[in-house]
């Protein structure tokens, strides 16, 4: 308790903390106003004017950019294909030149470099639209990935790492879907009915794909462990973690209910448990990340609850199944909360 108390009073005052303290200490209006005054939380004239200036800047940029986009959309069909390419490639050149001019370590430079990477994607998409060669869509993501790889390595920027991870995962999923294991008629029907996201989910249910996704995302995490963590940032690791957890868990659950146990099924189940145990150990003792710990725990809860649902015979137990499963979820959530609490307290004691 003493540790938590010290931890709290060493934190900087914020408006929400001030209100929380005022309620706990039952302060009157006068004392609360003094608390706010001493904390210097009340907005100053400088704060107001700087805020208004920033809002004006954002709104102005948004209006001008939207105006240009509307103008281009209106004339897009009548533009010659070379003009379209010229516009997008000028975008690439200008953003990269600005990134170089501003410096890739500075915020404006980072924004320009990321915009440049996005322009590359737009150019490739327009290329695919104009020259419809019949090439598979995975080619778009793979080419985009190849073009931005060098920038990602050089710039060491969180947003570019995230783009890199997303493109790697999408390239693999589309390559698998189009070359290795083309969709069945049911898959095509399902995706035309419910959209492409359902297709991704169906694909992730195929046993080898989640394992491959796990391998590539674990590789990113290994790179993260041995490189400059600060430059990569936690967002990239989290995206990578989610990209590994969701397909693995969904495939494990699908396997559980469809009973399609082949040699890959056992491997998938072993990988699921091995990676969750490894993840819980890693994010508690090596890299304190409560978000990914919570995701792994949620994956475990989903899997165990699905297993219980499958094992419970609803016909025999009837309405008592609700009671039994509800109790199981309660115990699992309680245990997850306990694990998160000790992970959080470990993290705080290190900080």
């Amino acid at each position: 308790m003493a540790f938590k108390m010290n931890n709290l009073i060493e934190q900087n005052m914020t408006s929400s903390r001030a209100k929380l303290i005022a309620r706990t200490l039952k302060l009157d209006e006068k004392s609360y106003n003094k608390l706010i005054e001493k904390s210097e939380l009340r907005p100053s004239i400088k704060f107001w004017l700087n805020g208004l200036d920033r809002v004006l800047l954002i709104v102005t940029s948004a209006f001008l950019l939207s105006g240009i986009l509307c103008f281009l959309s209106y004339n897009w069909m009548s533009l010659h294909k070379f003009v379209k390419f010229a516009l997008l490639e000028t975008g690439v050149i200008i953003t990269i030149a600005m990134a170089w001019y501003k410096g890739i370590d500075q915020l404006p430079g980072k924004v320009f470099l990321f915009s440049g990477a996005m322009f590359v994607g737009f150019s490739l998409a327009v290329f695919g639209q104009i020259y419809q060669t019949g090439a598979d869509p995975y080619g778009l993501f793979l080419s985009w990935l190849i073009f931005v790889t060098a920038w990602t390595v050089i710039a060491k920027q969180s947003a570019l790492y995230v783009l890199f991870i997303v493109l790697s995962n999408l390239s693999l999923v589309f390559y698998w879907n189009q070359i290795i294991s083309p969709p069945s008629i049911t898959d095509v029907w399902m995706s035309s009915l419910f959209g492409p996201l359902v297709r991704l989910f169906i694909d992730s249910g195929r046993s080898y794909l989640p394992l491959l996704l796990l391998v590539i995302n674990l590789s990113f995490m290994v790179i993260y462990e041995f490189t400059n963590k600060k430059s990569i940032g936690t967002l990239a690791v989290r995206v990578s973690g989610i990209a590994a957890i969701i397909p693995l868990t969904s495939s494990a659950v699908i396997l559980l209910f469809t009973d399609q146990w082949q040699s890959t099924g056992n491997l998938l189940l072993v990988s699921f448990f091995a990676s969750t145990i490894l993840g819980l150990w890693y994010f508690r003792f090596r890299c304190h990340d409560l978000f990914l710990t919570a995701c792994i725990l949620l994956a475990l809860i989903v899997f165990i609850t699905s297993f219980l649902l499958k094992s419970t015979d609803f016909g025999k137990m009837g309405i008592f199944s609700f009671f039994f499963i509800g109790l199981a979820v309660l115990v699992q959530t309680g245990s997850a909360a306990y694990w998160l609490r000790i992970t959080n307290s470990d993290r705080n004691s290190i900080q």
Partner: protein
Amino acid sequence: MSKKTIGFILAELEQSGDIQKNWREVISTETDHLNLTGPWHTSLLIGFGAWLSSLLFIGFLSALGMTVGGFGIYGIILLGTSFVLSRLKQGTFWDQTILVFSLSGQGFVLTLIAKDSHSTDIFKILGIFIVVFNLIWPFLLRTRTQAFISMIFFAMGLMQILYAFELKFLISIVSPLLFFAATFIISNESKLFKNSIAKILPSIASGLLFSGFGIISLSAYYIFESFAAKGSEIYPYPWLTSILVLVSIFFFFSRSKDILFKTQPAFTFGALLLIGATSLKAPGILFAIGVTVVGVVYMETLWIWLGLFFGALFTVLFLYGSDMSLITKSYVLMGLGVSLLVIRKVFNSKKMAIT
């Protein structure tokens, strides 16, 4: 965020005699609630577990209710359990469990009313029940999430009453009233810190504002072509909402001790009037600006982000739904951008003089 730590500020206040000397002990005993219980994703996981297990448990009760007893009895049992739990237990898990019990209890009671009522005015009766119940219940339960959700239900019930009693012309004044009520609560919050209901007041105010955004979004009917002709039936007088919101903003701005209003009243009034006049048909824009302004004045971060998000959304909807060709829209947008660029230039020159 302040540059000073909580401990430093409280020690200063203790020296000047503004807070009690035993503040360390008081805070220490309440640390579990004061110290952030964990990031949002941790709360989300715990909340998810609480919802799922409670819903399964309620599924068990509903199945039992169909055979033994009836919905009314189980509804009262669930509401009673949530009330008792709210007095005995605290923390994210219990808060969510209480919420599920309370919502299910309400659901059971509403089912009972709907099932047993043979009146043709069933929607009026349900609307009145929802409004009255959700005005009283949060003050009995005193949990923040329930308070927030109750206000949303209250606003929904109110809208149902207006439609059921065919008082659609009053829809235009609901959002300004909710804005006025929310701002009134938050501006008087500091007078009630000693009271036990103090902890739910920000949630009540936020719930009212959130509902206000929901109702005012009806005024953006023009983005759907099929609704455009029936606009006056969906949201009768959008201009009235704009005017009332503008009056509310002026009222609270003039009452607050805010430095922007005190030092630059003409500029503040002028800017708000200009925005109000140009977006008279899209009251959501002014409503969002009002929420942001009140959020800054009373330091409610959630309100600031809510206002900025909805402000951007309503502006996009307004421009998207305006009856113009793409090329005219392009000229209008670029014209607005250039005008704002000029305004920013003038603003920056004045800003230097003020600061």
